[in-house]
């Protein structure tokens, strides 16, 4: 975010700077690159023009000098050569001419023997002129001098050579044609003889066919002189520093202005961009505050009248809308919670109803309370518009029509309303099922209780009669041995049947929850002793050693149902005796951590581990070799376990396998604190 703001500001800055500086940069580039070239070209042109002029002037000077030499040489006074210029007329003339020219030159007249007989400078007189080559040509250059010569003919005889007129012209004179000004260097030089005059500057540049050269510091123009001076170059060099001074000054000025303008632009850009970005930052900060504090009541202050202000205004409007939306949402939410609470209350009230009519009437009044619809009513007629309630017929396990919730005048049009009523209907239907189920369960329980009491009465009465009758027969009737045996069989079978019925009744009672547990303080030592005494005869019959070990029994009185406990102990003990052919059966009792442990350890047939689970199921005995010898209903262990569970304990069996004996353990937690 911050980065975006700064980038926005940067964009503004870059934009401002570009718009402000671009023309400057273009102008600068133009002045620096194009103007320099143009100015340099102009300088080259100017200097070329100047060079041409100078060359022309020099040429003119040379022509003039030649003409002068020719003229002087043709004068009649030259005849004085023949008189060795005794009258000094030639010398005077030459001096005068030299003075007229007012340049560093000397005129001399030679006779045919190359003796200087007349000269503008006296020191040369009567000297021998050695440069015979200079006399052969009209002009000749030697050692920084140009010699212009002309043959002199006698005025009276034009075929008669009488001598030579020689003009000795110092090339240095040409310097006067050169420009000597600050910034412009001009000189003449020759590559052949190293002559150099003019400005004492040595510029190194390549003389080719080009007319100009541009070095780092100078713009150089050069041109060869004409005529005899061919091979001499006139050089004009302009100091760039000075020639381009104006340009450089202007450029520098532009640079300074650019810097100033740049700073000004930056300043203005920063100021303006801040001005533009500031409201955006304010907007951002306000937004952050709102997000952080969840305070939708705050607004953004608007100071300006620009687009940002419009944005802020729109933002404020959006805030207002959001605030309102949140408020309405909150209200609605409250309402919904209220509804939800009401609904739960309704459900609560419905759940508490105990019969169908009450359920329906309660539901109706409660729904009316919530929805405030007076026209809501319930009907048991079929084919009505509205929401049908179905209940479960448990006997057939299917849904059957119960009734309809409907409105008197209109239909449930709103989908959500319809769903609401559907869920209420489902709730009512559930409650109706519930009520029905409770009623049905109660009925079934009642039926079972009736059945059990009937059974105990109806079955026991004839059996008791049978047993009584057989016992009477055995005691009082005179019967043969065969008859007596038969009656005895009837009697024992009847006993067996009675035992079995009692056990079945006990199990049925337990399962039906009819078996009552009467907890009382039981003297456990006495109880075990009694059980031992009861089963002693059975063990004696089979010559089994029956041991009772109460050494570790620390607790004497235990809060439990003594009757049930005794029954469990007798069951386990009789089972052990029943399944043991020889050896011993040992009863071990001890208490540990508020739990009573009674172990019945026998040395009987034992049980395979895989058969262990079956043992606790009613009517099951483990198949073994001894089976036929054991009479029993197979209910004993299951009954013992169920009884133990009634007393919050359990029974378990341990055996290492067949013929290893069995240890049956009863554990019984007790709580003696109530004692």
């Amino acid at each position, binding site marked *: 975010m911050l980065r975006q703001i700064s980038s926005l500001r940067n964009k503004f800055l870059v934009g401002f700077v570009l718009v402000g500086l671009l023309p400057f940069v273009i102008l600068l580039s133009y002045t620096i690159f194009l103007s320099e070239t143009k100015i340099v070209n102009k300088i080259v042109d100017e200097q070329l023009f100047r060079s041409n002029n100078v060359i022309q002037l020099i040429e003119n000077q040379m022509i003039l000098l030649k003409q002068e030499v020719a003229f002087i040489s043709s004068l009649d006074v030259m005849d*004085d050569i*023949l*008189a060795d210029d*005794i*009258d000094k*007329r030639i010398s005077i003339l030459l001096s005068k001419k030299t003075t007229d020219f007012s340049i560093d030159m000397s005129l001399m007249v030679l006779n045919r023997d190359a003796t200087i007989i007349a000269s503008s400078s006296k020191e040369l007189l009567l000297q021998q002129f050695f440069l015979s080559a200079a006399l052969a040509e009209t002009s000749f250059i030697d050692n920084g001098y140009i010699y212009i010569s002309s043959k002199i003919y006698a*005025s009276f005889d034009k075929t008669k050579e009488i001598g030579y007129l020689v003009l000795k012209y110092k090339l240095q004179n040409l310097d006067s044609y050169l420009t000597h000004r600050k910034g412009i260097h001009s000189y003449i030089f020759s590559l052949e003889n190293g002559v150099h005059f003019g400005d004492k500057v040595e510029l190194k540049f390549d003389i080719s066919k080009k007319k100009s050269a541009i070095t780092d510091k100078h713009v150089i123009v050069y041109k060869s002189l004409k005529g005899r001076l061919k091979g001499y170059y006139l050089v004009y060099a302009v100091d760039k520093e000075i020639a381009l001074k104006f340009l450089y000054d202007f450029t520098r000025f532009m640079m300074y202005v650019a810097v100033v303008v740049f700073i000004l632009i930056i300043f203005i850009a920063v100021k303006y961009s801040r001005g533009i970005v500031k409201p955006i930052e304010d907007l951002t900060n306000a937004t952050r505050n709102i997000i952080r504090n969840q305070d939708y009541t705050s607004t953004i202050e608007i100071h300006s009248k620009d687009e940002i202000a419009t944005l802020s205004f729109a933002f404020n409007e959006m805030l207002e809308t959001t605030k309102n939306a949140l408020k309405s949402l909150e209200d609605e939410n409250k309402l919904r919670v209220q509804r939800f609470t009401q609904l739960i209350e309704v459900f609560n009230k419905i759940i508490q109803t105990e019969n169908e009519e009450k359920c329906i009437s309660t539901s109706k009044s409660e729904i009316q309370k919530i929805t405030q619809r007076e026209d809501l009513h319930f009907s048991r007629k079929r084919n009505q518009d509205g929401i049908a309630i179905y209940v479960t017929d448990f006997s057939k396990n299917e849904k059957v029509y119960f009734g309809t919730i409907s409105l008197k005048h209109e239909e449930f049009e709103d989908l959500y309303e319809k769903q609401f009523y559907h869920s209420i209907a489902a709730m009512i239907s559930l409650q109706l099922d519930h009520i029905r189920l409770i009623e049905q369960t109660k009925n079934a329980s009642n039926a079972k209780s009736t059945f059990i009491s009937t059974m105990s009465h109806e079955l026991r009465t004839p059996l008791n009669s049978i047993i009584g009758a057989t016992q009477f027969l055995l005691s009082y009737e005179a019967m043969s041995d065969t008859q007596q045996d038969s009656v005895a069989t009837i009697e024992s079978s009847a006993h067996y049947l009675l035992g079995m019925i009692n056990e079945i009744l006990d199990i049925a009672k337990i399962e039906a929850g009819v078996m009552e547990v009467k907890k009382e303080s039981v003297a456990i030592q006495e109880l075990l002793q009694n059980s031992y005494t009861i089963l002693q005869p059975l063990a004696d019959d089979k010559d089994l050693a029956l041991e009772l070990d109460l050494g570790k029994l620390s607790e004497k009185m235990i809060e439990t149902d003594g009757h049930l406990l005794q029954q469990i102990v007798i069951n386990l003990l009789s089972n052990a005796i029943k399944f043991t052919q020889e050896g011993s059966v040992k009863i071990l009792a001890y208490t540990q951590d508020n739990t009573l442990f009674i172990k019945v350890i026998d040395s009987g047939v034992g049980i395979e581990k895989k058969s262990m689970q079956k043992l606790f199921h009613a009517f099951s005995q483990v198949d073994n070799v001894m089976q036929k010898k054991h009479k029993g209903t197979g209910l004993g262990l299951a009954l013992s376990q169920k009884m133990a569970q009634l007393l919050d304990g359990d029974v378990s069996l341990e055996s290492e396998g067949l013929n290893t004996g069995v240890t049956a353990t009863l554990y019984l937690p007790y709580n003696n604190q109530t004692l």
Partner: protein
Amino acid sequence: MKTFILLLFTLILSANHYVAVSNKSIKRISVEKLKALYLKKSFYVHDLKIVPVNLAPKSSARTSFEVNILKMNFSRLKTYWMKQHYLGHRPPISLKSQKSVISFVKKVDGAIGYIEQKNIDDDLAILYEWED
């Protein structure tokens, strides 16, 4: 008297002798020939081209020469040479001093000049002599 005598003496002394001279290439010539040569009416003496040499105008020798030999005064000579100029003839060259004339004459064959007699030397040949 004394002044008169001195003047007379001077006049006698200044009664100048002049000679027309050349180098040895030319023998004596007549005064007419001399006049013709100086007026450029004649150019040769025995196939030798003659170069007459004047002295500077207004000099005593030249005045004497013009009076005695050419028999023409200065203004008449001027008119003469003016006319001759249009005909393509130019007056003789003139040298400034008798010394020059002597030197010139000695060097140039055919050159003739006039000088005072006292200036004469052995290398010169006398063509004609006169007196004021």
